[in-house]
């Protein structure tokens, strides 16, 4: 899962060396509302799942994303 998530984040932000552990919207200013939607779309397609409108709007850290993917058995 980490590999797939890392690729998605690196592609979205166009930062080939980005490390995503501990990344969150609060500490990473490039993660704006537009990037949020791009990330959500990419994660949904990669893992074949759909997030709720609340998650689309408010999911705000890599840790949260991982927890959600794990709970959905997407790993």
């Amino acid at each position, binding site marked *: 899962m980490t590999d797939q998530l890392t690729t998605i984040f690196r*592609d979205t932000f*166009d930062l080939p060396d980005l490390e995503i552990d501990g990344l969150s919207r609060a500490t990473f200013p490039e993660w704006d*509302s*537009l990037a*949020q*939607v*791009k990330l959500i*779309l*990419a994660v949904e*397609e990669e893992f074949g799942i759909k*997030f*709720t*409108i609340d998650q*689309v*709007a408010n999911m705000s850290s890599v840790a949260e994303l991982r927890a959600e993917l794990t709970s959905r058995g997407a790993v």
Partner: protein
Amino acid sequence: MIAARTLDSFSCSASRPLESYRLLQLARLLVHAGRCHEAVAPLRRAVLLTDSYRPLTAASRLLKSLEDARAVESSRVCRIAIIGNAIFDFEIPVLRVIAFAHKIDLVVLKGAYNQFAQETLDSTSELYSFKPEAVIVALNSHYLAFPELPPDPDSLVSRTLDDIAQIWDGLANRLHCHVFQHNFVVPEVSPYGSLSGGQPGGTAHTIRRLNMTLLERAARRHDVTVLDIDQIASLMGKQDWNDERMWLAAKQYPASNAIGPLATHYVAAIRALVGLAAKCVVLDLDNTLWGGVIGEDKLEGIRLGGSPEGDAFVRFQRYLQGLRARGILLAVCSKNDESDARAPFLHHPETVLGLEDFSAFVANWKPKAENIRVIAERLSIGIDSLVFIDDNPAEREAVRRALPDIHVPEMPGDPALFVEALHRTFLFETLSLTSEDTIRHAGYKADRDRDALKESVDSLEEYLSSLQMQIYIHAFDKANLPRIAQLINKTNQFNLTTWRMTAEQLLAYTETPGNYTQFLRLRDRFGESGITGILMASPEGRELRIDQWLLSCRILGRRIEEAMLASVWNYARSNGFAALLGVYAPTARNTLVAGLYERLGFTLLEQRYDGSRIYRAALDSDRSAPDFFLTEDSTSITHAI
């Protein structure tokens, strides 16, 4: 690079998405190896084979690398703006990469969310300083917010139309640009269920009315084209068209996977606007126009009509006949003995197409790319205006590699799907039908008759007078602007300045006081050539400068240019100008006219650093057209649109 070589040789995967993925991987490896120029072709093909959001965004990232490395050559740059009540951040990279696949370098300005009214009304807005050639007014159904069963649905429709027309007027008054107006998607949901469509005043009913009226209003103007978004949404399926979460969270409309199909239609419209629509379909025969191999199965063995499979080929022939009726040329390029190849069109009871439907018919055993070059030359059209249809993937690949400019759609293995496969390339989209489109076939037939005559007379002079040519020269008028724009945007050889212009820019030029315009129609004993010559000139002090001068290659070698010059010459002289100025701007394709002004008695005035040359001719005496022309010239009388 072994990986790249393996990917390159492993061609033609089973499905379009797989093939697209393979080509995308190949392009990525080439980019990473620093071989950006070689990545261009596979990336173009990868894009044409998919309309899914993710591969298209991946392709758009690679395009950025190619552009940074200056590896991309485009046949046309086009500036467009998108405004409306949504965000366009997701759309633009996809739109640009699809345009790239069609060799258009698209420069895009995006409007801010819901700021379209301010952007069009404020003449200091970025929209106006950007000077787009076209503006897409991307309003979606959220803009309407129609109530269900309002007391007066008619006035709701007309008020909405007035608001939209105000946007058009704002754009038309400040920019000479084309407008692409979205129509509205009839929504899937309504509390009234199917009554929403059946009951006057129901939302679906009202939006359908609005869409019809929008078309009627747009039809009254030459600068507005309605994009049928409701149809595009239906093609995809309305359940998948919108993702309500994306609208609520980000004001993104439509759904991410609808962006590809939408952008594909945008690019088809832009191609039409800049005159890049395809002009001719080059067809294989065996297993393309009928089932089986005529050389082996003979007339009674091929499958054409009479069975479900045979009927699929009949249906494909019918679609092609429809294309022909609207002015697209058909040609045959087949590996067969010529007599075998012709037999089904002459003798098969179920054939829809006849020999007279083909403007060129080549059947032999040479490589197809070679024959296609011959066809292009015979029809005097560029390779980039041809679409090659063949059921055999190996032939398609060989033609693609030999002729990178030709369009070669992937054809499915099943003939029942041929019509849709060709249709969904959207290569034949045009903004309007011009009368030249429908007389084109007669024109090519007449060309063949003329060639036969040419062989039977001795001198060129004798040949030209035997043609009994009648020339009609007129100033531009609104009715003919679409055809004039078409000609300006696709003529390459006899074209002195290759100055591409949209119909809107043409109108502005024509309306500028003092400017001179002429178009030329030609008729001879074999037929009517339609509008085939254009000349535009503007005053520069006491001299009149020829800004634009071009002739369709179908009528070259008939000294038409002398008649055109005589017309502008005498106009300039009688209006008190001292001299005519001529400009020649060299391109890769117009060397034909490099010596034109010298040949016509102009003297070289100046050679500019960019290679262009300025010529001058003093207007000391009148000039007349060669006497074998019968000329009717109205340019000196009427000169306003």
